[in-house]
């Protein structure tokens, strides 16, 4: 029987009522009395020296409040990078200043050159057109290869080159690694591109700065996944404001996918400008601005080599990657191609030697940072593609080759610094073979061939490090922040509960799933519990939502705080029933004295806590409110196996996904329906990356796909009905719920499955194609077939 309450139940998402009926309260829905509007004049060239900016005519235009240029921000800090990577020689990454408004140089199309604050947005735009810019164009540095050339133009004159860092991870001994390749029976090599993406959440970014002269307090309303992180970065590094004078509110947020983690210039601008103008200042990004100002994702160019012995055991793996940073270092940019990518290179396999080499590169493009999966999709893609290629070269069955090399004993220490606490990759593969009906593939292929189509089957395994992250470990690796989370459980006098959480829900359904946990622990109805999130003025200091961390980290904090509540409530119950608290049991919202029929209800205990007439005041404080901070002991390791089946139209190269099956191990599951939804969404984005999406620049640094006319998002009819199974569950060993997180799995595991399937289809049609770079658009597939 499916449960209808608590952990394991699938109640419908309560937040959907307001989202689906237009009652959501998004940042753009907020209007502050007397607010002015800012229009950002953005660079339309990729690289230029700014000789002068003449705002005099613009300042006299109707409605103009104030015009800001880079000079106005000379006294404040730049946008900080939250992670310092140390390179292979022990040197720190090169870290350029990241100004709020371009000062003397423009470094990417879309960079803010001036900001016009006016009574109305149209007036601000009118005035922006009257600003006179004198620029001297410089050569645009666009491709990473060209950026690293000896005589390349520098994106930042004050740095020694366009190299941010040159990093090695895993086994640093080149000779030892080479020796493993030299003694291999077979080596498979693959060069590939992990295509640059634009996150494109449905809601574009918005920021509203408000300032009260009465209290000297700032309020920033912003579309963020982590309001406390924004407050910390903006106060401590950019504007130098005391945190207690700044409140950051991220209300309903319409999707983030990573792109709303980062601290952006527009947030600091609106906060700064509100005080400078004496008025609230509002900015709502247009879609066109989003394409050239939201941090992009991925953009790696990789060569990967896999060595195998004569029995097809993996003996060594070596990768060389160039990763694009864009023009500046966004908040988590440097951690993505290093620690979030290199640590996952072992995958699900017991390869003894792994060496990861990464060069991160500055170019005159939009900054690149975490996007759903962040580094882990890049790792999975290259690994699972090279394994598939090896299987083809060796004539081995791709499933058998993977099975043979699976890690089967846990805990397992990888050669790339992680300790997988638990998992069962054989079980997920068994499950996948069943869900994907591998046995029926031959018949389905024959049917497709009858219709003139090529059919392919592609397999893929993934593992990810989620529940980010143990603060001491990431601190050692260069993180400039802790990655714990926090929750306050506030029980009201009548027994209802508000839980203030540091995680932020922007599509994940926390408002439904978090209360399920608390209600389950106490044994009351979920409707008695609400969460509060997204407001530094109301919730404890938490680090927000990304890296599939919310239930694993913040949920653990919530469990710890609820345990404290239960302990205290038991003491109150013991007092009321004149028993010892060690004898008190809590079940279904009733406290009973073990072995007796004496009981007192949850509500009575709560009331007693707030109306302490009969209460052990000498021993116990009144009230019922507890906070817990939780710092995880390890990462969590969701893993699974995916299968994709495609049809390729040989006449046009068009790929259609006929089946997609996923067998995931997420450990314990709070709300199976929400988990299904998270996987579906991730798969949709991964399929989007594999078949459709491409942020392409021309050689002048202009984004060619700068609107939905050219940037192809996956639509409903681009994806199939999914078979999703998460019945394989090896609970996480180190957090109280045994949960691992499920937010990114779909996006990590699907691109290689799709590409592997297309290659399988083409080879079944006798085409000698071993690789096609994503997106596998009809044009590219056709070109590969006819190449």
């Amino acid at each position, binding site marked *: 029987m499916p449960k209808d309450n608590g952990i394991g139940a699938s109640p419908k998402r309560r937040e959907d009522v307001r989202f689906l009926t237009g009652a959501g309260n998004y940042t753009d829905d907020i209007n502050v009395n007397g607010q002015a509007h800012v229009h950002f004049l953005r660079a339309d060239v990729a690289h230029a020296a700014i000789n002068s900016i003449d705002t005099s005519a613009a300042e006299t235009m109707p409605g103009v409040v104030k015009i800001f240029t880079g000079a106005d921000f000379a006294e404040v800090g730049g946008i900080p990078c939250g992670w310092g990577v140390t390179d292979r020689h022990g040197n720190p990454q090169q870290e350029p200043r990241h100004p709020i408004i371009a000062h003397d140089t423009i470094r990417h199309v879309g960079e803010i050159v001036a900001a016009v604050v006016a009574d109305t947005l149209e007036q601000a*735009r009118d005035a922006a057109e009257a600003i006179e810019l004198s620029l001297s164009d410089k050569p645009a540095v666009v491709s990473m290869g060209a950026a690293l050339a000896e005589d390349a133009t520098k994106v930042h004159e004050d740095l020694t080159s366009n190299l941010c860092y040159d990093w090695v991870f895993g086994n640093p001994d080149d000779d030892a690694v080479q020796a493993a390749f030299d003694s291999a029976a077979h080596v498979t090599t693959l060069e590939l591109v992990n295509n640059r993406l634009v996150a494109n959440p449905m809601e574009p970014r918005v920021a509203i700065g408000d300032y009260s002269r009465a209290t000297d307090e700032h309020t920033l309303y912003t579309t963020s996944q982590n309001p406390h992180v924004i407050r910390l970065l903006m106060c401590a590094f950019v504007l130098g404001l005391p945190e207690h004078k700044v409140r950051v509110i991220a209300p309903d947020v319409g999707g983030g996918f990573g792109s709303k983690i980062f601290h952006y210039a527009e947030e600091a601008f609106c906060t700064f400008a509100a005080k400078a103008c004496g008025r609230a200042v509002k900015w709502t990004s247009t879609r*066109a601005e989003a394409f050239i100002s939201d941090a992009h994702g991925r953009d790696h160019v990789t060569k990967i080599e896999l060595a195998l012995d004569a029995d097809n055991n993996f003996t060594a793996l070596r990768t060389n990657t160039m990763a694009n940073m864009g023009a500046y270092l966004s908040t988590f940019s440097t951690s993505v191609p290093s620690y979030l990518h290199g640590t996952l290179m072992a995958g699900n396999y017991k390869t003894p030697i792994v060496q990861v080499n990464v060069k991160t590169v500055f170019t005159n493009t939009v900054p690149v940072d975490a996007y759903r999966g962040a580094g882990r999709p890049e790792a999975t893609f290259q690994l699972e593609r090279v394994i598939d290629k090896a299987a083809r070269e060796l004539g081995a069955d791709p499933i058998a080759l993977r099975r043979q090399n699976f890690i089967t004993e846990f805990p397992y220490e990888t050669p790339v610094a992680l300790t997988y606490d638990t998992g069962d990759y054989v079980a997920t593969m068994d499950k996948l073979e069943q869900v994907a009906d591998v046995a029926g593939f031959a018949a389905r292929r024959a049917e497709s061939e009858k219709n003139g189509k090529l059919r392919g089957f592609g397999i893929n395994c993934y593992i990810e490090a989620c529940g980010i992250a143990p603060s001491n470990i990431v601190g050692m690796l260069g993180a400039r922040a802790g990655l714990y989370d926090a929750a306050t459980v506030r029980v009201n006098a009548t027994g209802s509960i508000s839980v203030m959480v540091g995680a932020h829900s922007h599509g994940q359904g926390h408002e439904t799933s978090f209360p399920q946990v608390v209600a389950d622990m106490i044994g009351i109805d979920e409707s008695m519990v609400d969460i509060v999130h997204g407001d530094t003025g109301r919730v404890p200091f938490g680090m927000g939502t990304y890296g599939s961390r919310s239930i694993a980290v913040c949920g653990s904090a919530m469990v710890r705080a609820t345990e404290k509540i239960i302990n205290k409530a038991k003491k109150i119950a013991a007092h009321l029933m004149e028993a010892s608290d060690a004898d008190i049991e809590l079940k279904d919202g009733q406290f009973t004295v073990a072995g007796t029929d004496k009981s007192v209800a949850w509500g009575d205990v709560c009331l007693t806590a707030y109306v302490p007439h009969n209460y052990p005041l000498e021993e116990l404080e009144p009230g019922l409110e507890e906070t817990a901070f939780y710092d995880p002991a390890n990462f969590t390791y969701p893993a699974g196996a995916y299968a994709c089946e495609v049809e390729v139209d040989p006449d*046009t190269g068009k790929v259609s996904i006929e089946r997609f099956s996923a067998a995931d191990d997420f450990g314990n599951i709070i709300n199976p329906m929400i988990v299904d939804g998270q996987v579906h969404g991730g798969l949709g984005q991964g399929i989007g990356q594999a*078949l459709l999406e*491409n942020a392409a620049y021309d050689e002048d640094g202009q984004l060619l796909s700068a609107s939905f006319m050219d940037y192809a998002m996956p639509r409903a009819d681009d994806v199939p009905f999914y078979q999703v199974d998460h019945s394989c569950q090896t609970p996480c060993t180190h957090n109280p719920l045994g949960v691992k997180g499920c937010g990114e799995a779909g996006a990590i595991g699907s691109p290689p499955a799709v590409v592997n399937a297309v290659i399988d289809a083409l080879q079944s049609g006798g085409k000698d194609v071993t690789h096609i770079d994503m997106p596998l*658009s009809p044009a590219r597939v056709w070109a590969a077939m006819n190449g």
Partner: protein
Amino acid sequence: MYEFEFEKPSTVAEAVAALADEDAQALGGGQTLIPTLKQRLAMPSKLVSLSSIPQLKELSDNGGMLTIGGAVTHAEVAAAAADSYPALADLASHIGDPAVRNRGTIGGSLANNDPAACYPAAALGSGATIVTSTREITADDYFRGLFETALNEGEIITAVRFPVPEKANYQKFLQPASRFALVGVFVAKYAAGVRVAVTGASEEGVFRWHEAEAALDTSFAPDALDGLSVDAGGMIGDMHGTKEYRAHLVGVMTKRAVAAAG
């Protein structure tokens, strides 16, 4: 957008008069024009809405001649022509999304003449007549290249007359992002001969593939096209497909259109 005046006349004559002002511009369904204005890429002094002129909303089927008013929406064509000219109705029903189809008009589409738009292929492939506020223009004379037509300043498309063919079909290969035609081919078989019009592919905009027409005149079957191809030289090459790919697709889509026309 920039500021502009707005007029909503109820007759063609009033609309023509309103459009006589310098920089006045007609507004059909606004599906192309409004986004252009929002991006400040156009600065008309006045918009003259054609949506309240009854004459432009007329649709008639007159013994083998389908006449569609210039302000008739794509959704209305999809519904009204389903029996009389199914290939045309089908084309209209696959333009954009429901919002676009319920606002966008045939007059707007033909006036705009986007090189990847669908209606130009139907008009040219059907040998339609573009009826304007001042004259009648055959489709063969009307299309003049990318976003270029025979229309003069202030001239309004009041109707489009489509001779209904014996058989016809439109095959649209989607550009993955915009879902306009990466290549679209309209094939129509008339007693007087076959017409093949190609959109999306050429740097010159919609064009007739005369070689294919001649082959299909001889035998209206897909294999009549075997060995025929358009020259990749004049094709569009961009991030969604090379010139060669588009040239190849013209052949594939033409065959499919012939096969589907039956």
